[in-house]
């Protein structure tokens, strides 16, 4: 028996007994709770239950999607880091790497469009700069309900302002995106944000902790009671009353994030950092577990040392808070003061909150008392993984063109088409995004793909695009998945770039329904096939399930964020027809 079990954790004052109802409120099935009991060998405390609930949420564990995501190709000679880290990393030549990922903030954006979208951008930016990259471009893929729906206007306005508000203040240009409308998104808009950053290929920072006894350091903003249970919220279907009883949404502070970016990059110039991980969904819980697990070590944290925004916070809240603009780092021993000086210069909180141990346990202390002691590997390796039943979506019969009446007036039909919400100019959106800051935007939003010069990159540039056509995916997921990848690839080639790799954001309905799981399976297989054929691997991504309201799912929406490179930015081509008299050529079938 270990010493931990001789001294079982103390409970919090007024801690309720764990009932099946409490287990269910934590989003754990009875079966999953049995696994918890087996791993712990005793009944967990509330703090421990909270940790399991966060770690085993759909959002953190990918329990429904994992088996399918494994089918995606993730390798190529130019891939430095595939899925599994904060973001994917590819080699773009000249000793430089591009680091990128896309992430969803769908549920929070529906509830509080401005803050939900803003913190979505904040989260993806952190994913990229934790790896040592300076972000150089943001992208966003948006899906809203019927333009006539009473909520749509409010959601569009708030989401666009939120994305702009965060990115503009950070000083990162938002250079591309896509926006479309369909009634299936009426009660469930999609907000997917992508960031692309540049780092030195030999200075990438990873999350794996190393070095027994090394200090574990908390930096950034203080922890408040924001979004407690947010990670679980993102994994549960919306119900009619979720608008009234919902938990708090996080508020972002882009100014603090800008400081955090500069402070992290400044510290990364030294060699003081061993590992670094941002605190995103499930905050301190997932960041600490990931770091310790990847390093094969244990972690002891004094939760009372965590900088707190409010009085009376308890260990449960500290572990589950989703306060924004925070990071966890492991430093080399003795480098704390050097790091502290940098973070204090940028007026950020800095606290040594723990040490690495060799116990492979997560031990959480509260003013000396142990309040949780959890073996780390089984939380990760024994996390539930489901092979959910699925039914393939049949290929719909081909439409007989003869059954469709020709338009009475072709000119009018054309006008209707270009004036439709999906086809009309999206300039009113990207005008609200600073797409020029940094002075490297060669092709602005409005074309097939954006082209952004790489700083200190010998004149080379990245091409960036995001694409998906949900109605194709609905009609036939495999074809839709293939098409999304192919479109991204084509958009990159169309501006003159060589496509290198992509990130994805899988937005789907309730995976416990076989037909929804069938959409997921189909899209993934289609994407895998296209990515393999085009040597266009997926290096990072995100899954958002349960996008469903009152039993109706959204359209299957696997958004692809593609990145390509071109050696000479002056060779890029946009869509403008510059002079009269030029010849238009149609290529392809």
């Amino acid at each position, binding site marked *: 028996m270990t010493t931990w079990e001789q001294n079982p954790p103390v409970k919090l004052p007024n801690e309720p007994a764990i009932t099946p109802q409490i287990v269910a409120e934590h989003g754990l099935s009875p079966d999953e709770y049995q696994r918890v009991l087996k791993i712990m060998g005793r009944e967990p405390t509330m703090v421990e239950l909270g940790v399991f609930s966060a770690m085993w949420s759909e959002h953190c564990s990918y329990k429904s999607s994992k088996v399918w995501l494994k089918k995606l190709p993730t390798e190529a000679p130019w891939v430095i880091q595939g899925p599994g880290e904060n973001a994917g990393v590819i080699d773009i030549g000249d000793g430089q790497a591009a680091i990128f990922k896309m992430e969803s903030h769908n549920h929070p954006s529906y509830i509080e469009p401005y803050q939900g979208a803003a913190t979505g951008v904040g989260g993806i930016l952190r994913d990229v700069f934790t790896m040592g990259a300076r972000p150089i471009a943001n992208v966003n893929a948006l899906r809203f309900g019927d333009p006539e729906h009473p909520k749509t206007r409010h959601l569009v306005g708030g989401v666009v302002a939120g994305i702009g508000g965060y990115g503009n203040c950070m000083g990162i240009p938002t250079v591309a995106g896509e926006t479309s409308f369909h009634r299936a998104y009426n009660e469930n808009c999609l907000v997917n944000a992508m960031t692309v950053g540049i780092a030195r290929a030999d200075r990438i920072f990873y999350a794996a902790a190393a070095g027994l006894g090394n200090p574990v350091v908390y930096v950034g903003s203080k922890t*408040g009671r924001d979004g407690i249970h947010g990670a679980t919220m993102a994994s549960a279907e919306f119900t009619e009353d979720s608008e009234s009883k919902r938990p*708090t949404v996080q*508020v972002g*502070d882009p100014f603090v994030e800008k400081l955090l970016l500069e402070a992290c990059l400044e510290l990364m110039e030294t060699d003081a950092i061993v590992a670094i991980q941002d605190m995103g969904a499930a905050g301190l819980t997932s960041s600490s577990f990931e770091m310790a697990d990847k390093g094969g070590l244990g972690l002891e944290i004094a939760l009372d040392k965590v900088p707190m925004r409010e009085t009376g916070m308890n260990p449960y809240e500290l572990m589950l808070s989703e306060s924004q603009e925070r990071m966890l780092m492991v430093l080399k021993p003795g480098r704390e003061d050097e790091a502290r000086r940098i973070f204090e210069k940028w007026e950020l909180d800095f606290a040594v909150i723990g040490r690495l141990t060799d116990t492979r346990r997560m031990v959480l202390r509260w003013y000396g008392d142990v309040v949780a002691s959890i073996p780390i590997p089984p939380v990760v390796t024994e996390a539930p993984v489901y092979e959910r039943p699925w039914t393939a979506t049949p290929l719909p019969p081909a439409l007989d063109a003869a059954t469709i009446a020709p338009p009475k007036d072709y000119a009018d039909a054309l006008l209707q088409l270009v004036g439709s919400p999906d086809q009309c100019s999206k300039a009113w959106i990207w005008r609200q995004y600073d797409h020029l800051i940094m002075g490297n935007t060669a092709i602005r939003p409005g074309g097939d793909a954006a082209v952004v010069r790489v700083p200190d990159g010998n004149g080379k540039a990245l091409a960036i695009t995001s694409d998906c056509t949900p109605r194709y995916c609905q009609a036939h997921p495999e074809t839709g998945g293939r098409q999304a990848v192919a479109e991204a690839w084509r958009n990159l080639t169309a501006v003159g770039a060589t496509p290198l790799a992509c990130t994805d954001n899988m937005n789907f309905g309730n995976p416990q329904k076989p037909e929804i799981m069938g959409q997921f399976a189909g899209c993934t297989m289609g994407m895998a096939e296209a990515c393999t054929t085009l040597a266009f691997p997926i290096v990072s991504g995100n899954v958002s399930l349960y996008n469903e309201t009152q039993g109706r799912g959204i359209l299957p929406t696997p958004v692809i964020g593609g990145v390509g490179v071109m050696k000479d930015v002056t060779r890029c081509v946009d869509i403008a027809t510059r002079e009269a008299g030029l010849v238009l050529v149609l290529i392809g079938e």
Partner: protein
Amino acid sequence: MKARVHVTLKTGVLDPQGKAIGNALHRLGFPEVGDVRQGKFIELELAETDADRAKSRLDEMCRKLLANTVIENYRIELVS
């Protein structure tokens, strides 16, 4: 009738504005300043003479537009 609506962030919700103002006041030599919170207030003219009805309409406006009750509280006041 004239009404005033105060919208404030709920306690516990991060208030970056308030925090920034507090820091700035400290830097400017006002060390006596403690916690700072920023809110907005909205003054409306209403073509309505009945106080009760006005209040219930204002309540509806707050819930529909003026405040997001997920993160904000509101307070209604009839001024005249």
